[in-house]
């Protein structure tokens, strides 16, 4: 608090008053924290510390990361794990198109923005209407989630390695809960629920007949078929851009500037997300 306010101080204050920055920061904390669960589950799934860190640093999409370790934990092959993770990453391509249209990053920023394109950064950005705020929101959430997600992945991996028998601690139950938590915020309306039920059934039916990991890919094919042939309501509910988390922001944005803190459940569940995990 200097008596002689330079130009830096009002600028810094202004940055922190930006709703997009505040929301981005709170999402970063909420999402980063659950990197602990990814790190712990990953090492108990059979990956080592550096494989776990490689997923968080390089793949950096919570849903895909959980998918990869989920397939490995279930005894699936590396190629099946890759298939599940890659198919789940498709939505990031759609997010990339949206961010590209909004921010139009140039040069190296485009390549950095690509790596930071996940559920959280996209939703923070698209929830804003002012272009400057969209930019701030994207970079704050993207960088914030990246840093904290990796930090807490490392913590979780170290802790998970020290746990001993993962079943005794219910970590297989934690994985089930994590996937349901990633799915839940997307189940808005009847159609998404129907898709989830059909794909769950297809999975269960496939389990006895194909190698571990493959039932997930069977479900992906079924889901893609539904998407391909369904003509109903293409712009409602199913598209990642009207992801409930983003809607929340948009709705609440005009009314209060504490949106980020008011809605932790919406944020964290949407990785996927990655959020993929979200995360990221």
């Amino acid at each position, binding site marked *: 608090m200097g008596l002689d306010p330079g130009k830096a101080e009002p600028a810094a204050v202004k940055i922190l008053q930006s709703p997009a920055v505040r929301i981005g920061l709170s999402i970063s904390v*909420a999402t980063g924290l*659950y990197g602990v*669960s990814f790190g712990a589950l990953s090492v108990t799934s059979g*990956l080592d510390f550096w*494989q776990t860190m490689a997923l968080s640093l390089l793949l*950096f*999409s919570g849903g*895909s990361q*959980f998918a990869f370790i*989920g397939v490995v934990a279930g005894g699936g*092959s*590396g*190629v099946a*794990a890759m298939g*599940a*993770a*890659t*198919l789940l990453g*498709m939505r*990031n*391509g*759609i997010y*990339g*198109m949206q961010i590209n249209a909004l921010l139009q*990053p140039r040069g190296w920023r485009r390549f950095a923005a*690509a790596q930071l394109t996940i559920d959280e950064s996209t939703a923070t950005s698209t929830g804003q209407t002012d272009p400057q705020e969209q930019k701030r929101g994207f970079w704050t959430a993207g960088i914030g989630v990246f840093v904290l997600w990796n930090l807490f992945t490392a913590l979780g991996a170290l802790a998970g390695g020290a746990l001993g028998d993962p*079943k005794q601690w*219910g*970590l*297989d*139950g*934690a*994985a*089930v*809960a994590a*996937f*349901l*938590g990633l*799915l839940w915020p997307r*189940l808005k309306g009847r159609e*998404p629920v129907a*898709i*989830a*039920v059909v*794909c*769950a059934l297809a*999975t*269960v039916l496939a*389990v006895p007949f194909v190698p571990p990991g493959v*039932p*997930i890919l069977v*479900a992906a094919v079924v*889901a*893609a078929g539904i*998407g391909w042939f*369904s003509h109903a309501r*293409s712009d409602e509910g199913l*598209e*990642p851009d009207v992801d409930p988390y983003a809607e929340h922001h948009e709705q609440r944005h005009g009314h209060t500037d504490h949106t980020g803190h008011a809605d932790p*459940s919406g944020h964290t569940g949407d990785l996927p997300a990655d959020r993929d995990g979200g995360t990221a």
Partner: protein
Amino acid sequence: MNLWTWLLLSCLLAYAWKLLGYLVPASLLRNPRMSRIAGTMTIGLLASLTVVNAVATGQSLALDARLGALAAAALALWFRAPFLVVVIVGAAAAAGLRLLGWD
């Protein structure tokens, strides 16, 4: 090929998806079918991963403590618990049911 290979390939493909979004012409974004497939596939994969982790053991189906974790997690989500709490509730349910002898 070992796990590292598939893992690094997964990272490469994940980045390829993301970057693709920045490189393709914006008109593709208006193709509703592509967006719809990305949406349905995300839901389908997450639903599939949920049930695989809940009931599959290798190539057989098992009804064990993980089902309790699924129910507990659903309950937590219903009451709008944050993600990390949901995960902890799932772990606690599975661990608790095992303590009670239901494996």
